[in-house]
């Protein structure tokens, strides 16, 4: 089953209709395999199956009681009207009381347990989805926007949860009450039942007439709403441009135009959809009229009792409501199933997997070899071709070349984020693809250019490098990375919680923290991406020094921007358009008098003004 769902259909932005789409018929969600999806949800609920059966029993009980209540009410009224036997009446009243209490109790229990089931089921699904996502290979994340993945973990799961909370019980109750009501009504008075049922075709035609119209208007409204919201988003996030170009009047005018269109389409969509509850309500009133009017005629002729009329008026209400609920719930369930399908779609994505014969490695010595490695992100657009590079343990490799030449791709291959399309990468002489990925990564330390830190304390962020490190070791690493000084100056020191948007500490300081993190991990192999961003000179020197500390005795791959780093490297690899065009030490390459030499030359002339 797995593998068949590998999403190749491209992006499908998960747009969940807004929560309060009051009585609005939704556009039909796109469902591929309803049965399979429901089965999978059931498998998640299976752990709670005992509770679930209890819920179902309670639903049967509460539905039965809700049918019994009105019936007994009618009987009681008949007793009251016909004869005044107080004893019997007392018994009836006590019975009614018991039934009402039992009904409330059953309703409460069914809801209480169902919420437990729904919430715990969704919790498990969410956990599974999240841990599965973390295992997915990087191309997955490249293919999709993070907002889309987010929306599956949040909106889609929320949708499933809400539906499980209420729809299961509502559906079951609706079907049971509907069946029960009709049965009892038939039993009490077939004639009156038939008269009551005349409203069903009316309801059907009425609904069809309305939904035929609303569908069209809703589509228009959805489009116009999307337009307005999109425009708001675009112009408000670019507000400084609008100001600087003094285009306020122009965007305001354009906005008004879109806003007007939305008002017009929204007017008709809302008006028509507003008909639905009114129709249902009127049909209720109509059935009430029919029952009372004809019931009275029948009662005069002694065919029914007054009690039956009372019972029927209540049943008629119980009968139109489930019909309405069923129609509503149907849409809700469909959209939840579509949401669940999007969730399962991700769970079916193949996670990063080691080859069948993959073996674990312990501590690597650090010998690396690229042997005619080819790689393409997209078919036909080769990013790296025929890369050959041999690095002895402890050597430093500086990767040099223009943006987009393939430097980042090369280190991404080394970090096992992607698999080469051709050729091999050898680590300590062994084919990397035949080694267990986790054990390899344990040997690698990575400092990315954009220094990603997490919203936890600085101490925990550094400890990310080695979870078992003591506080003392964390401080040691921070000191070695020249980060201790600034950390201590923060009001909360190592306990400062970092913010996601990067506010609070500077870019350079973030870089120092990410170096400390790797320092703590103490890997055999280092992958470094020197930052180009404008950090101030002092911090830059600190970073430089920290890098030197870090690289001592380790095999290092550095995407270098500083001449110093490059000059001191054991191997300089010049990468241009996906190929290594020059390779050697600084001296050798200068002698070669190729591209590298001209780079150094131009930097010298710049320096001397």
């Amino acid at each position, binding site marked *: 089953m797995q593998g068949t769902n590998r999403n190749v259909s491209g992006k499908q932005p998960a747009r969940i209709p*807004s929560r309060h789409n*009051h009585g609005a018929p939704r556009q039909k969600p796109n469902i591929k395999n309803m049965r399979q999806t429901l089965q999978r949800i059931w498998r998640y609920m299976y752990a709670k199956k005992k509770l679930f059966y209890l819920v179902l029993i309670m639903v049967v009980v509460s539905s039965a009681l809700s049918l019994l*209540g009105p019936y007994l009410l009618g009987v009681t*009224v008949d007793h*009251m009207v016909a004869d005044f036997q107080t004893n019997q009446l007392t018994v009836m*009243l006590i019975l*009614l*009381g018991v039934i*009402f209490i039992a009904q*409330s109790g059953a309703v*409460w229990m069914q*809801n*209480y347990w169902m919420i*437990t089931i729904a*919430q715990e089921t969704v*919790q498990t699904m*969410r956990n599974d989805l999240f*841990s599965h996502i973390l295992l997915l290979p*990087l191309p997955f*994340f490249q293919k999709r926007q*993070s907002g889309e993945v987010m929306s599956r973990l949040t909106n889609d799961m929320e949708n499933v949860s809400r539906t499980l*909370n209420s729809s299961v019980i509502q559906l079951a109750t609706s079907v049971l009450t509907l069946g029960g009501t009709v049965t009892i009504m038939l039993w009490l008075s077939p004639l009156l039942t038939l008269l009551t049922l005349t409203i069903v075709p009316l309801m059907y035609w009425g609904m069809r007439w309305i939904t035929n119209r609303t569908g069209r208007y809703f589509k228009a409204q959805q489009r116009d709403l999307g337009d*307005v919201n999109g425009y*708001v988003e675009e112009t408000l996030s*670019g507000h*400084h*441009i609008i100001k*600087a*170009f003094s285009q306020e009047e122009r965007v*305001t005018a354009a906005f008004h135009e879109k*806003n007007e269109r939305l*008002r017009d389409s929204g007017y008709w969509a*809302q008006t028509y959809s507003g008909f639905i*509850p009114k*129709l249902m*309500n*009127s049909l209720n*009133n109509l059935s*009430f009229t029919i029952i009372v009017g004809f019931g*009275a*005629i029948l009662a*005069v002729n002694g065919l029914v009792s*007054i009690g039956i009329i009372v019972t029927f008026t209540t049943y008629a209400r119980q009968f139109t409501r489930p019909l309405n609920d069923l129609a509503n719930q149907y849409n809700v369930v469909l959209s939840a199933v579509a949401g669940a399908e999007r969730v399962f779609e991700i769970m079916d994505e193949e996670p990063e997997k080691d080859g069948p014969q993959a073996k674990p490695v312990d501590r690597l010595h650090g010998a690396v070899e690229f042997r005619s490695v080819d790689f393409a992100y997209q078919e036909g657009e080769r990013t790296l071709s025929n890369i050959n590079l041999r690095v002895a343990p402890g050597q430093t490799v500086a990767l*040099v*070349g*223009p943006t987009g030449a393939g430097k980042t791709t090369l280190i991404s291959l080394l970090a096992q*984020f992607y698999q080469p399309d051709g050729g091999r990468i050898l680590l300590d002489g062994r084919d990397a693809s035949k080694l267990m990925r986790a054990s390899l990564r344990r040997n*690698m330390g*990575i400092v990315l250019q954009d220094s990603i830190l*997490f919203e936890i304390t600085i101490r925990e962020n550094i400890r990310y490098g080695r*979870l078992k490190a003591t506080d003392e070791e964390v401080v040691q690493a921070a000191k070695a990375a020249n980060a201790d000084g600034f950390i201590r100056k923060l009001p909360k020191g190592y306990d400062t919680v970092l913010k996601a948007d990067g506010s609070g500490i500077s870019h350079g300081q973030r870089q120092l923290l990410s170096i400390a993190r790797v320092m703590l*991990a103490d890997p055999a192999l280092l992958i470094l991406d020197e930052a180009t961003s404008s950090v101030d*000179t002092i911090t*830059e020197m600190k970073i430089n020094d920290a890098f030197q500390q870090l690289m001592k005795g380790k095999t290092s791959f550095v995407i270098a*921007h500083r001449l110093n780093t490059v000059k001191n490297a054991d191997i300089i690899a010049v990468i241009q*358009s996906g190929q290594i065009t020059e390779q050697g030490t600084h001296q050798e390459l200068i002698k070669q008098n190729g*591209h590298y030499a001209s*780079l150094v030359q131009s*930097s010298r002339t710049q320096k001397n*003004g």
Partner: protein
Amino acid sequence: MKEIVTYVAKYKAAAVLALLLMAVELVVELIQPVIMASIIDTGVVQRDMGRIGFWGAVLLGTSVLAFASGILNSFFASKVSQGTAYDLRKDVYERIQRFSVTQIQRFAASSLITRLTTDVTQIQSLIFMAMRIMLRAPLFIIGGVIMAFTVNVQLALILAAFVPFLLLVMLFLMTKGVKLFGSVQAKIDRLNSIIQENLLGIRLVKAFLRNSFETDRFRKVNQSLMETNKRALQLMETVMPIVMLGMNAGIITILWLGSIQLETGDAQPGEVVAILNYATRILGSFGVFSFLLMNFSRGKASAARITEVLLEPPEEQLDKSDQGEHRMSGQIAFENVSFCYPEAKQPALQGVSFLADAGEMVGVIGETGSGKSTLAQLIPSLFPVTRGGIFLDGKPIESFEMQQLRRQIGMVPQQAHLFSGTIKENLLWGNEEASEKEIIQAAVDASIHDYIMSLPRGYDTVIGQRGINLSGGQKQRLSLARALIREPKILILDDSTSALDANTEARVLQALRRRSCTVFIIASKISSVKNAEKILLLKHGELEASGPHRQLIEQSAYYRMIYQSQSEAGVFEHAGNES
């Protein structure tokens, strides 16, 4: 909420009509049990078919009347709700457009976006509901009790005793529930931020093998989300069983008392039936009522957020008149300018003075946070200076009408923000009246014309969400062309050539020389500004030194240090051709 009511007031007629129509429906439902009572008491009991027929017809007539009112109500209700939403969106948007940058930043653009979209929609559906059912449920409960009194006072007293009690119980439980939902939302936000963090840092999570660490972190928050959510939902779900139980207890009491009254002859059977009918219908209204309370509390929060924007006085005025275009030469002087961002303790700029002559190229250099971008934003008066003054052609900047001033300034910000639409539409932002020739000239000067022509649809290519994606460098060049089209007298490049390679950058700067405008180049690399007539060197918000490159090299040790550290860095980035 008060503010919103004044917006609804604009549609007074439609709103009153909608409410009246709703009242008709309500009255019909209220009198139906009474009609039923008289059918039973005068018709069935006395075996009078004529009366049954008559009252039956009345019942049918009222049902039709209710239906017609309901349908008509829909038209008026949506007129009110859509109209109000339209007006709100219009006014809020206009208001935001007149906000100063400071104000927008204080609210945060993302928050303003939600207010304009989600919150307005929320209000709209609340109004629609209010026009249709919101008043109905409480009115029905009250009306039902009153009607019951007209039928039989003693039996009605029972209803009158039960209803307020149950209402109080419901309100109490629901306010507790709403509070719990608030903390559910906070936990959802927390969960979302973990997800976002992980998606952003997925490489890191993989590289450090922290799957299980992150999963644990996620599980913990997820667990507590689940528990709070469960508690909130379960609390809400106790409301209905309790209300049901209470009302049913009321019904039993009515039956019991009714039976005694029937015995003594104080009540008719029809009366008892009618009151029972009111009781069951009121019970039904309670369900709607709880739904409405939820929506109302949400709507109130939205209304508060919208009102906050509407009550914020805008800090910028659109120009009142077009009194004689005031062309400036491009000469600009800062005299002892200091600037402090709102709520910041340290000033971002302090005592900066310099003079830039018309047509000069001025470089601005400094570390991150030294105040370069702040300086740039003060020129088009995006922020007012805190102390000191800026003078254009010797006149204080405040004496210019804001829009006229900005019309003569071209701004190319750090982040090239383009709008969805065609390339041409984006370029015309600079100057709506630009001719074909001017557009092309600007594109040529920004070194983007050749690229545009290589696209199949050329200048009509759609970019942005629905169109093609541009690289960072292409965006920067388009954003530059957009600024050039307005033939500005002052052009500000705020670190906006960073994604260009050295050759392109040089070509662009060359082209700028040919235009007669004062150019400010803000850069972190000295190489970008070396040829400027004047370089301003900022340090911690103060002007450390200024002058041409050669002079600074000789006179400023700080400048020399930056220059040296940079000559060893960054060279490899820029060399080679941009692919």
